């Protein structure tokens, strides 16, 4: 204790001589000894008080300086505000409500907007698996020999071989998606689920809240009719009753016994998974399993990877099918379903950080302006004996009060806003978040810390300077010193304008892209068109009979009053269909290098008339056409032969082993959103029926349960405004009561849905840009208004010497436009660089779209003029006589 005290003194009192510190330590020892006589508690209390007193060090007032403010009611020294300071802060805020509301409002908005967007992005993009064992798990990726290509998921036999490497892995578990028809509710229902290896849930570290997990041999023949259900399904189907375990649910016409219920927060792999079935790796089911590996305890990731690489050779010789492929362990990152969505979120994240920076610059600007306005007051008070710490503490308290006010409002806004964001955001953006999207504490703290710091730093620092300034000088010279502040403020405004330009340009590009998408001719007539989507189980309706089933369904629908045309296909524009890809080979030419993406639709002859898609050359599909007779879109015809008419009769194929297709007709362009990039309008239409053979298989992954589904869409044209959904469902159920029906949606809704991500991104970007613009304009206005107030005297002289109102207004507006121009120049350069980042989000608009890049500066200059207008007017109404007399 004594030694600790000696050390404390050495740290806190370097101003005292070693002998004196020595003596103090001895005195402390005596004090402590006598205090110890009063019991251990008294000793501790004394020691604490003594140490605190020593730690105060030199930061106490000079004991011989008479106290300057005996009536102030607060102790000198420390920075921590007293109750009196808080009262003053509230009083000051009330006296200057405009400033207080602006600072608190900016803080609240910045904190809320940032927290919301970053929380959503973080939950969806950046967070790892939200399970207890998540940090110990590695993603298992299948990599080709060159290391360039990887495929998610391992073929079941490969999976089993890797799994046998028990000296490398403690566990290797896998899963794959599954969709099922569930009977027993009000109507048959298609639900999402997943097949999981029995050890997966224990490996993740998640336990069922009711019942048990899978047994190790669940999934083997005879032991595979078991299911674990989600908490949501448990509530829906069993009302959350305990006896749900042991009950039976029917999936795909098979009875499954419920063995467990997973907790509500468990979303695996996404929030819409309702059931999990046992998968086994021993039984080849055809579908690949995505793997999670737990590396053997004591083995590093690199060591494990090295061993895997050595093993790869030995394993792969036995498996020529995946020759040379090896597996790679990568950190588990819950990936968004596609690159477009994660890109969109990244763009929004970047945008919101820019908004945060604009807000910080604005707060700084406000703080400096405020301190400038108080410069005289502060200088006078300093001259009259207020200590610097007193003044600093006062401004600190005031800004801390405003920051807390804004922070509380921001937090409330964020809590409410996150719910709103989840409701408004396209499902694609949120359903994949592996854990519930909610406000992330770290993000809230980060945002609050940044904004608080800028508010406090710039609120307080000028007070520090002002209190040092010589009072006489501060009172006399109005511009000295303020000049440096002026430069700082101008710099901040330029930064604000530049960041706003970047945001505005981004918003302009996204909005223009969205407008192009909306205005684009869809190529078919969506009015009165309804799309009925459903999946037909192949075992219930096997191939030859399926056609009869579907035609019967179509006939039933045709009988509904108001229906004028019905056509069976495997999709309608913006929904369904298949996507083929491969190296395009046109008959008579060498195969092209690189992959061509070719969306394909299987249709009945009546498809074109039902959807009102024009045939521009050749003919449509006839009932007896072979599967290889195709109708192509105009753009694809152009690609194949240069013209629509010339394309008729052209033969082409995808990949050297594929069938040759013959073009029999050319159809008008149809907008479709099925390819993520939307760069291509290619479309190929092929016959859906061929006598005595099954229809071309749209993507229909074989199920482990031995059952598969084929997706069909029936396009129904009815009078505008007819509400068909229930009639259509009844018509289908009259043919097969067990047939689950997916969406029955107007084509217009489908089109809107296909644009929902674009709309969301455009609206958010627009809102951010607008926010930044308002902040920048406010900053500009503030600086100019202050400039006018400061130079009133000078303006008066100018006017007395004959300057016209116009000259004076020009002076002020010129200054504002000058700052705006500087900001615009920097901002445009930044936008030019940032636009590439946006390129993948744009449709029909070049990243360096001249209209956006020319329009944004004009908008900003317009706003700058507006923001300069009021200060300029104020300047021009200066009465020279009054201004000069005031001096």
């Amino acid at each position, binding site marked *: 204790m004594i030694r600790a005290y000696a050390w404390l*003194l050495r740290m*806190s*009192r370097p101003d*005292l001589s070693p002998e*004196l510190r*020595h*003596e*103090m330590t*001895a*005195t*402390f020892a*005596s*004090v402590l000894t*006598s205090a110890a006589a009063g019991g251990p508690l008294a000793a501790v209390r004394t020691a604490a*008080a*003594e140490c605190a*007193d*020593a*730690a*105060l*060090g030199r930061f*106490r007032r*000079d*004991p*011989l300086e*008479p*106290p300057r403010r005996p009536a102030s009611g607060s102790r000198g020294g420390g920075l921590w505000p007293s109750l009196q300071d808080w009262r003053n802060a509230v009083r000051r805020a009330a006296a200057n409500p405009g400033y207080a509301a602006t600072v608190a409002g900016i803080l609240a908005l910045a904190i809320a907007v940032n927290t919301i967007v970053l929380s959503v992005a973080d939950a969806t993009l950046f967070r790892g698996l939200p399970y207890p064992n998540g940090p110990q798990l590695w993603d298992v990726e299948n990599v080709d020999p060159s290391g360039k290509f990887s495929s998610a998921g391992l073929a079941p036999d490969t999976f089993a071989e890797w799994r046998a490497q028990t000296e490398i892995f403690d566990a290797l578990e896998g899963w794959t998606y599954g969709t099922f028809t569930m009977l027993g509710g009000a109507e048959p229902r298609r639900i999402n689920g997943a097949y999981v290896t029995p050890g997966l849930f224990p490996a993740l570290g998640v336990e069922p809240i009711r019942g048990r997990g899978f047994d190790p041999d669940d999934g083997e023949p005879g032991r595979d009719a078991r299911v674990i259900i989600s908490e949501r399904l448990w509530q829906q189907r069993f009302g959350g009753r305990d006896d749900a375990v042991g009950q039976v649910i029917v999936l795909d016409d098979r009875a499954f016994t419920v063995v467990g219920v997973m907790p509500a927060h468990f979303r695996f792999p996404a929030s819409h998974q309702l059931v999990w079935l046992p998968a086994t790796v021993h039984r080849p089911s055809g579908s690949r399993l995505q793997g999670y590996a737990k590396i053997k305890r004591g083995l590093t990731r690199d060591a494990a990877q090295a061993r895997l690489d050595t093993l790869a050779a030995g394993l792969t010789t036995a498996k020529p099918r995946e020759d040379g492929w090896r597996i790679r362990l990568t950190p588990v990152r819950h990936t968004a379903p596609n690159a477009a969505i994660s890109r969109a979120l990244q763009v929004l994240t970047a945008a919101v950080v820019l908004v945060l920076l604009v807000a910080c610059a604005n707060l700084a600007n406000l703080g400096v302006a405020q301190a400038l306005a108080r410069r005289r007051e502060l200088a006078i008070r300093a001259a009259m004996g207020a200590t610097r710490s007193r003044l600093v503490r006062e401004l600190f308290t005031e800004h801390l009060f405003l920051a807390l006010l804004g922070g509380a409002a921001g937090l409330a806004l964020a809590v409410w806003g996150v719910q709103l964001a989840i409701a408004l955001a396209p499902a694609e953006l949120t359903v994949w978040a592996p854990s519930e999207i909610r406000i992330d504490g770290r993000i809230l703290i980060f945002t609050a810390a940044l904004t608080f710091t800028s508010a406090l730093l710039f609120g307080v620092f000028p007070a520090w300077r002002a209190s040092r300034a010589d009072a006489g000088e501060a009172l006399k010279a109005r511009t000295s010193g303020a000049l440096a502040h002026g430069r700082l403020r101008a710099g901040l405004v330029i930064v604000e304008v530049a960041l706003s330009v970047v945001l505005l340009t981004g918003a302009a590009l996204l909005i223009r892209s969205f407008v192009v998408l909306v205005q684009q001719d869809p190529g078919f007539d969506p009015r009165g068109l309804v799309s009925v989507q459903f999946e037909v189980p192949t075992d219930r309706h096997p191939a030859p009979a399926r056609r009869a089933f579907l035609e019967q369904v179509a006939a039933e629908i045709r009988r509904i009053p108001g229906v004028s045309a019905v056509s069976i296909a495997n999709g309608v524009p913006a929904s369904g269909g298949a996507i083929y890809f491969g190296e395009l080979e046109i008959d008579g030419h060498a195969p092209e290098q690189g992959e061509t993406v070719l969306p394909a639709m299987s249709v009945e002859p009546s498809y074109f008339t039902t959807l009102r898609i024009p045939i521009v050359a050749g003919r449509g599909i006839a009932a007896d056409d072979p599967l290889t007779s195709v109708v192509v879109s105009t753009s694809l015809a152009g690609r194949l032969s240069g013209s629509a008419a010339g394309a008729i009769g052209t033969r082409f194929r995808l990949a050297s082993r594929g069938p040759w297709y013959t073009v029999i007709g050319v159809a008008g362009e149809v907008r479709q959103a099925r390819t993520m990039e939307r760069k291509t309008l290619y479309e190929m239409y092929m016959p859906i029926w061929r006598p005595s053979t099954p229809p071309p298989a749209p993507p229909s992954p074989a199920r482990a349960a031995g059952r598969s589904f084929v997706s069909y869409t029936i396009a129904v044209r009815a009078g505008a405004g007819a509400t068909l959904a229930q009639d259509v469902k009844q018509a289908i159920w009259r043919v097969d009561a067990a047939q689950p029906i997916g969406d029955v949606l107007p084509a217009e809704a489908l089109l809107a849905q296909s644009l929902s991500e674009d709309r969301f991104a455009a609206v958010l970007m627009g809102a951010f840009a607008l926010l930044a613009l308002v902040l920048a304009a406010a900053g500009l206005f503030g600086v100019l208004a202050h400039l006018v107030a400061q130079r009133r005297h000078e303006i008066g002289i100018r006017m007395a010497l004959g300057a016209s109102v116009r000259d004076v207004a020009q002076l002020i507006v010129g200054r504002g436009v000058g700052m705006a121009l500087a900001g615009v120049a920097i901002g445009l350069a930044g936008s030019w660089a940032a636009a590439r980042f946006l390129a993948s989000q744009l449709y029909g608009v070049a990243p360096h779209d001249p209209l956006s890049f020319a329009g944004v500066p004009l908008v900003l200059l317009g706003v700058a003029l507006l923001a300069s207008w009021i200060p300029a007017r104020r300047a021009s109404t200066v009465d020279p006589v009054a201004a000069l007399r005031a001096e």
Partner: protein
Amino acid sequence: MPERDPRSFLPLTPAVFHVLLALAGGERHGYGIIQDVTAATGGAVTLRTGTLYTILKRLLEESLIVESERRPTPEEDDERRRYYGLTPLGRRVAQAEAQRLDQVVGLARSRRILPSKAGGR
């Protein structure tokens, strides 16, 4: 060197005044001062070591006190301890503060904040 006007030090902080009063009773070492102040004020004022030595350092600098050459008897002596005593200036400063307070107290009496003294001076 012309001596500083004792009144320029006024008003003293309570802690400084108590240190001067303690030394007015004779030379003391640091711990002695602490004990004396505690005893004289009935425990109402407790000087802490850090505070005390900050005061002592300033009082030395302003020549209100000096380090004493006097040492106690060898068996009582702790060689780490120095003794401090009042200078004539220090004594006058303490007197000036006492008079100032006396006037304040007198004022309080005349305004009946305090009861007037029973006996005369």
